[in-house]
């Protein structure tokens, strides 16, 4: 006689479970390999935007630069960022000095540089975290092309920018002209910069900068009164 039908039934069950486990294991491993959004580790180098950019997504056309005015507030609705903007200068190393850690909710703007809405690149800098908790630009690396950034200016106008690039620049190989310089002549551009990469506890600094680049796509003039 055969060895019985019961072992055969359990045999198929075990085989099925084994295949299910195998597929589950491969799926979990595959998620990590492809490093999609929701992966547990963030990229430390390169073009973050490429990870989430839909194929063939068209970005809106650029708006003509508008009359310059200093920024007062910046909002990125898709990331839940809404913060006041304060003018800042450069520190001794030639980097934009972000607001002090005692004001982790404020965003700094390089006041001697381009004003948001004018032709050129306006530079905004914010902390990713303090030494104990997340800060204003903690979620910045999740920005993706097509996201909107709204800057309210001292003249009441709200300038709307659209993100077109998100990149990580390591400190050791820092391309300042690409981070701080305008990318296309005649366009009003905006950079949102914070720290990223891995944290060196001995030096007290992060290993890279996360740079979100956006360009002007709209402006709404607040009617006075």
């Amino acid at each position: 006689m055969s060895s019985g039908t019961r072992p055969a039934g359990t045999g198929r069950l075990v085989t099925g479970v084994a295949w299910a486990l195998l597929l589950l294991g491969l799926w979990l491993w595959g998620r990590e390999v492809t490093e999609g959004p929701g992966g547990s580790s963030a990229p430390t180098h390169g073009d973050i935007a490429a990870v989430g950019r839909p194929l063939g997504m068209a970005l809106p056309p650029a708006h003509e630069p508008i009359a310059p005015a200093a920024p007062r507030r910046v909002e990125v609705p898709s990331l839940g960022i809404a913060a006041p903007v304060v003018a800042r200068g450069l520190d001794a190393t030639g980097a934009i000095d972000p607001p002090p850690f005692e004001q982790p909710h404020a965003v700094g703007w390089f006041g001697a540089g381009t004003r948001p809405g004018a032709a050129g690149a306006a530079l905004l800098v914010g902390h990713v975290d303090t030494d104990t908790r997340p800060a204003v630009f903690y979620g910045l690396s999740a920005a993706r092309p097509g996201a909107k950034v709204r800057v309210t200016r001292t003249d009441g106008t709200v300038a709307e920018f659209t993100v077109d690039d998100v990149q990580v620049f390591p400190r050791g190989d820092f391309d300042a002209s690409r981070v701080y310089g305008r990318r296309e002549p005649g366009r009003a551009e905006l950079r949102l910069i914070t720290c990223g990469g891995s944290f060196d506890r001995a030096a007290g600094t992060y290993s890279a900068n996360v740079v979100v680049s956006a360009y002007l796509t709209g402006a709404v003039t607040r009617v006075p009164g």
Partner: protein
Amino acid sequence: MRSVPIALRAAGAAVVLVLAPMAGGAYADGGVKATVTPSTASPGADIDVRVQGCKGTTGTAKSPAFVADVELTGRDGGGNPLFGDTTIKSGLGDGTYKVTVVCDGRDHRDVGTVHVTHRKPTHEPTHRPTHHATPVAPVRAGGGGTAAFAAPAAPGVAQTTTESGLGTPYTLLGLGLAAVAAVAVAFRSSRRQAAASGTGTGTGTGSGTGSD
């Protein structure tokens, strides 16, 4: 008799090989041109170099006036201009200095000039801002408070990643499950073979029912 056509072909090839470098050389030297901006600069000033006529996308520009050789790069595709920048040597005497460009595997001598003068050209601003008037360095914008743990709930970047890419816990879990599954399948198939050989055919066909 067959040696004649061979000899003629060899002679033709030799002629082409002799003439080609001369033709190529005449074209190349006439085609490459280097432009320095500003064309008149002070010692220690930054200058840009633009080179036209190189077929490749990289090259070097040299001059006794430059503090270092200029690495030239250009956009994809040969025939586009190449760009680079450097600084005029400090303490250099006034005069006109020649620029030589190396590209496409050869030197192109004296294809540009730069004038050095200690007097600032009138179109430059007289008030020279400090060296760091525009930002040049990466920002220091984080205290490291969120770097200790990976927090998938928050879309943060402030995470320590000692390896690029795979998260270790997920990798081990995935590989462990795959290993368990492989062992289970192998175990099952060995039991099936043992059952099949028990019926005497040993061909391994069919499932483990061993129909008699």
